[in-house]
């Protein structure tokens, strides 16, 4: 109940700002589209010699994969950023202390803010992904149910991770600067994540699984880009495409596991460090 009241306040606030600054929202999306198209062109043209360029365009799957990775990376960058740079700027302006004095508590306020932010990011990213993939001639498989499940799990995965980093920022404000590097790593991982990168020795593989974005990206790409189809070789040696639900994919289970781990760890660490920062008096400092 408490959470929904905060959520309502956040939805109204975001809607007012979005409506009031509609031109900024619109230009943001146009700039995002332009940036992605330039990046894709650069990505494709940087591969191979001049003769290969046209054939790269003929195979838009790679571009679609890249676009998806880019958007998921931006999403991860943004969500974790709300807990780091967002929190730092709130401390600077004094809004953080106001939120701490809300009877609902800082964690609930943050969760609601992030959720509202994430929903608007997902909507605008969805439009952007559609526009860019259509432009490069790619195709996305909008299988809504698995996509919604995957996005929800990805969100909580990132929020859990964000809460942990955010808790550290509450006590040690300089962590916010280091967090930029962490966000860049998540972004890069999302752009290049594919099943092949998990073919590593087990400690590295485990580390990749535990990062909040690896399996999320692989699963989302599997649905949106691959259409949940896998290649199978029949008894006659023929290669066929067969439907295999993402819910049976190993990355999906890893995603659930890391989601649970990060949510529990993140919220626990955040609550402990919020308490510690009250003792240290660092809530309002920056």
């Amino acid at each position: 109940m408490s959470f929904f009241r905060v959520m309502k306040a956040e939805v109204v606030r975001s809607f007012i700002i979005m409506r009031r600054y509609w031109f900024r929202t619109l230009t943001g999306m146009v700039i995002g589209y332009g940036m992605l198209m330039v990046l894709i062109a650069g990505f494709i043209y940087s591969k191979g010699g001049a003769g290969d360029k046209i054939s790269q365009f003929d195979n838009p799957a790679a571009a679609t994969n890249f676009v998806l990775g880019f958007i998921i990376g931006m999403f991860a960058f943004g969500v974790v950023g709300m807990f780091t740079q967002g929190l730092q700027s709130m401390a600077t302006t004094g809004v953080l202390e106001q939120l701490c004095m809300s009877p609902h508590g800082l964690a609930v306020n943050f969760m609601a803010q992030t959720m509202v932010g994430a929903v608007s990011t997902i909507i605008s990213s969805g439009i952007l992904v559609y526009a860019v993939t259509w432009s490069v001639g790619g195709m996305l498989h909008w299988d809504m149910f698995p996509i919604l499940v995957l996005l929800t799990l990805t969100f909580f995965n990132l929020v859990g991770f964000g809460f942990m980093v955010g808790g550290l920022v509450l006590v040690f404000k300089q962590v916010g600067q280091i967090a930029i590097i962490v966000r860049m790593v998540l972004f890069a991982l999302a752009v290049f994540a594919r099943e092949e990168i998990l073919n590593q020795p087990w400690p590295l593989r485990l580390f990749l699984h535990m990062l909040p974005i690896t399996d999320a990206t692989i699963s989302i790409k599997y649905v949106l880009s691959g259409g949940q189809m896998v290649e199978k070789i029949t008894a006659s040696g023929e290669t066929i495409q067969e439907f295999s639900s993402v819910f049976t994919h190993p990355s999906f289970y890893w995603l659930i596991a890391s989601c649970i781990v990060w949510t529990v760890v993140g919220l626990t660490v955040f609550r402990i460090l919020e308490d510690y920062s009250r003792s240290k008096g660092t809530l309002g400092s920056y």
Partner: protein
Amino acid sequence: MSEEVLVELRHVHKKFTTRHVLPVDEETRKRRLFKKRDVHAAKDISFTIRRGEIFGLLGPNGAGKTTAVKMISGLVRPDSGNVFVNGLDVEKKRRRILRMVGVVLEGTRTSLWPLTPLENLIYYGTLKDVPGALLRPRAHDLLDFIGLKDKKNIQVRRLSRGQKQKLAICIALIADPQVLLLDEPTTGLDVLSGRAIKDKVMEMTREQGRSVLVTTHDMHVAQELCDRIAIINNGEMIACRRTDELLDLFSEQVFVFKLNQPIDPSEFSLIPGIVSAKMEEGSEGPALVVQVVREPETLRSEALYAVPARLRQSGCLLHAVSQRQQNLESVFLHLTDSAVTR
């Protein structure tokens, strides 16, 4: 003002550890980047605030005033001691207490600048659990009360500093708290805005029965507003009295005798009970300023009677006698100076 205690700080201690960058050690040529130092923000602080009272916390910068406010609002946890609001321990019942306390912290951007004052009040009111049916009428009433009615639909970023401060007070009042904590409410404001805020603080205390804690280093604000004042310095409380009592602390010692001509003050210093005597030349002519002992009272009276007699002997005409009124500034300086020299 009622006798009911709404806020109580009981033997509160708070210490912060700060780090200082050190220069290179000349002898060892080694550099220790930081040196930790303990800063006491509260040393055994105890006071109470009654219902309908304006209580002032006075002290120089870094004395621990803001820390006291933050401890009452649960933003800072005391190392030891207890803070109670309406009989509830802040550490144990923090969320319940946050519904009873409204806070305006100094120099912070409490409000959200892209929103209008009305939207800000609706936003913070929802966060503070104000029921939907009450929220909008209360927001309008508050804006009307504080004098921002005609600015309710203008983005906060376009408001002046004084108007933003008024809005911050409205935000603190949106949940109708019994206790209002104002940290330096008039700092940086022009005379008119400062006056308006002081009037509103008076009104909400006298007419609405709230308790208000004001921290300030502006003596005029404290002297005008507060029923009682606590002076703190380096985290230590060096006085806590009614404002008039505090002003009386030193005022009875100094008397001004306005004369028709200057006179040698040294002979007055010899009178038993007189601490010092000096001549001052003011716009209304020469004046003999005499400081007498506070106690014993008989000695003080005799000394005061002796001065006119001595003046008459010297052929000096006495125009008027007055007791020099102390202002809070001199009291404050006297108290903080003696705290430093102690």
